[in-house]
């Protein structure tokens, strides 16, 4: 059965959005619908994965800085950080000056840095490389994301994974289902007649095209989200403008509220753009890393003091690192391998993977030392308690980062 046929089959059989339909509008009052968070809370200790996607290709070399390596200073004249500027991690590597918060997590043994992460035959296209990271398929383009495929394994409940922001990233779309999406900012429940209409629009119709089935599915999922997240949405996010350009801090604040409320979601996806630093990189990258550092360290501090939050694992990645050599416009062009951050209470802090050489290069680019699917494999088995082989289509050794 191809996937569109399968989708059609599932919706026709009522399997898709079954939770929404089972809730049964018209027979159950709004009061009864107050949140599966209250009726069906997350079991204590269930691990939660928060995925932070950094769009644009973050320059890993000026993030986890090999300040002790003369080759670093040779390759990037007037573009380097010195020992007294970085937050030293050991005698050779230090974090960008804009990242004091993550340096604190490192000192507290709750930050893992996986070095040299990439995939075979690196692609220099933002779009293809991001696609590879999000679909976990370097061999050939496919139309499901790795979290989407994990969702598919779990009975099509859209609230298992939640994207913060209206536009779904490929990461969160599976063959038969997709993650729910929440916008930051307060919203009130729809009046009953409109809610009934939405439920009606979510029903399948024999004349539907596959695209129209997807529309109907989105209304089923919207009702499920409404029932699950209403208590969280009533509050809104302080200071948040309800827009796609919500800040990373606003996105993570909403995630924190969901986690604390005990909603049954185990994957959240958030994002930050602006890392494509072909020109005048230093100031731009410091600004973006500063945003990441402030938002992430505040979130993790908050989570560490919450019973549910103590089970949160954050994974932050970008589609590639950048060229070792600086270009003439004080920037760097698209490169290959880069560092991945994994943080949270369940994380064993420290370095993982070998630091790529700055002199043994592949046409000017770093040689990757860790396959990104090893990280996903560990997140699937260690956080989501799922079989990594089914989702990744192959076996990749974990890296031992989780306690």
């Amino acid at each position, binding site marked *: 059965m191809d996937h569109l046929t399968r989708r059609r089959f599932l919706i026709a059989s009522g399997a898709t959005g079954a939770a929404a339909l089972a809730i049964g509008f018209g027979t159950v009052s709004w009061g009864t619908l107050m949140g599966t968070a209250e009726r069906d809370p997350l079991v204590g200790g269930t691990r939660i994965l928060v995925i932070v996607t950094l*769009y*644009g290709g973050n320059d890993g070399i000026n993030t986890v800085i090999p300040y002790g390596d003369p080759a670093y200073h040779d390759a990037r004249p007037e573009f380097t950080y010195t020992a007294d500027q970085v937050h030293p991690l050991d005698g050779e590597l230090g974090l960008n000056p804009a990242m004091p918060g993550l340096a604190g997590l490192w000192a507290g043994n709750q930050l893992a840095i996986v070095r040299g992460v990439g995939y075979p035959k690196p*692609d*220099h*296209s*933002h*779009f*293809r490389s991001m696609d590879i990271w999000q679909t976990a398929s370097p061999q050939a383009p496919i139309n499901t994301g790795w979290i989407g495929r994990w969702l598919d394994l779990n009975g099509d409940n*859209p609230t298992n994974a939640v*994207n913060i922001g*209206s*536009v*779904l*990233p490929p990461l969160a*779309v599976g063959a038969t289902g*997709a993650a*729910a*999406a*929440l*916008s930051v900012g307060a*919203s009130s429940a*729809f009046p009953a*007649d409109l809610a009934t*209409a*939405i439920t*009606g*629009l979510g*029903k*399948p*119709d024999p*004349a*539907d*095209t*596959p*695209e*129209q089935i*997807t*529309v*109907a*599915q*989105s209304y089923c999922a*919207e009702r499920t*989200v*409404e029932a699950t997240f209403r208590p969280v949405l009533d509050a809104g996010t302080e200071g948040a*403008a*309800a*827009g*796609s*350009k919500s800040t990373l801090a606003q996105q993570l604040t909403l995630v924190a509220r969901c986690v604390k409320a005990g909603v049954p979601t185990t994957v959240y996806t958030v994002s930050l*753009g602006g890392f*494509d630093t*072909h*020109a*005048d990189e230093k100031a731009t990258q410091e600004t973006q890393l500063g945003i990441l550092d402030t938002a992430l360290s505040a979130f993790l501090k908050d989570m560490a003091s919450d019973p549910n939050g103590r089970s949160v694992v954050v994974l932050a990645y970008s589609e590639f690192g950048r060229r070792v050599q600086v*270009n*003439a*416009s004080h*920037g760097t*062009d*698209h490169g290959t391998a880069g560092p991945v951050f994994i943080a949270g209470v369940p994380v064993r802090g420290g370095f993982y993977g070998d630091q790529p050489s700055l002199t043994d290069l592949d046409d000017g680019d770093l040689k990757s030392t860790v396959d990104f699917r090893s990280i996903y494999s560990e997140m699937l088995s260690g956080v989501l308690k799922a079989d990594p082989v089914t989702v990744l289509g192959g076996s990749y050794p974990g890296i031992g980062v989780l306690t």
Partner: protein
Amino acid sequence: MSTTDDDWRAVARLLRRTGFGATGPEIDAAIVVGPAAYLLSALTADQQSDPGVVATPAPALELLGPVGKQATAAERKAHNAALQDGLAELTRWWLRRMVAVRQPLTEKMTFCWHNHFATSRTKVRQAALLLQQNETLRTHSRGNFRTLAQAMLIDPAMLIWLDGNDNVAGAPNENLSREFIELFTLGHGDGYTEQDVREGARALTGWRLTTDGGATLNSKKHDSTAKTILGVTGNLDQTGFGDAVLAQPAAGPYVARRTYGQLISDNPPSEDVLAALTRAFQPSWDIGALLTAMLGSADFVAAQGTSVINPVEWLVGALRALQVPLTDDKRVRTLLATLDTLGQVPFDPPSVGGWPSGAAWLSTAAADTRIRAAVALTKIADLDSISAAAPSERVDAAGHLLGVAAWSARSRAVLNDAAGDPRQLVAIALNTSEYLTN
């Protein structure tokens, strides 16, 4: 001559795909002249005399000079505020233009080329340069793709956006070269190598912005030694680079496929259809010929309901059908905030790859935002054509107003429940599968 439901459906689709929504009266009028004559007139219409264009002249935007290294914090703040004001004014203007224009094909194609050559205000910042690029896209929107692509290689906003103005001999910046090949003309990995990208970057070295908003070649910064790009060797400049790239056999099919994705369907064309489109398009690069081939094919009618409309199509279409006045800036700001929540603000694509498409627009958060927006819009809409109809006729009247030929049983049942309240009825109609796909 009698009009069948199929005729109406086909013409409705033609108008909706070449515009922003379409109303029953517009579709009825196009049926009278016939779809082929309608398309020809849309492709050749004089935009300057369109009453909607006359009513929405482009804003006078000044290029704001650099703030200078010695500027005080207050001066920098004022400078940034002036830049933001310009961008906001520009964005409001385009939304108003898209809503006001009578014959929408030019604006629709300008928006499609904006998505194709996606350039963002977040980095360009100068509204005057974005307006200039927008006018270039509009001028060539129905014209020649080669001319348009070559113009984009030295367009000032594009030079800022993809660092062309920072690209100099000796240590070239690859950004513009790479995205021109990968996203604007050939498609990812199709027939080129990393070496071609790097050589292309050398051909594009030396361009600088001028203080009056133009671009000029500084020969001292241009690499005038020989390059080899896609098998063409010589002292290639930006024109030579563009021509070498467009001479590739992959160029025609790539641009045709991407345009098909924007106008016809979220599903790719069959190989036969793509071959026919490519024959119509390459090597003349005549956009009108490409559109005529696409919109006239049997494939076009068969693809009914396979294109998820994007937030701009949705909102502009609703504003046009509901005749919502946009004289108030505050109202336009609110509408743009809705587009922001839905993830598609003109002049603000998420990346040089443009906006996503298809199911990406159908998240639960989008459903929520869209329904709230529709409820708000119908409160300020002109719904006389619905209110005047008997309640039993209103569901069909709503379909006619929004250019929907027929409701599914599912949607009709939901709409029937709302027939007593024209505002609620239309708010729901704007969120049906039939309206959200096309």
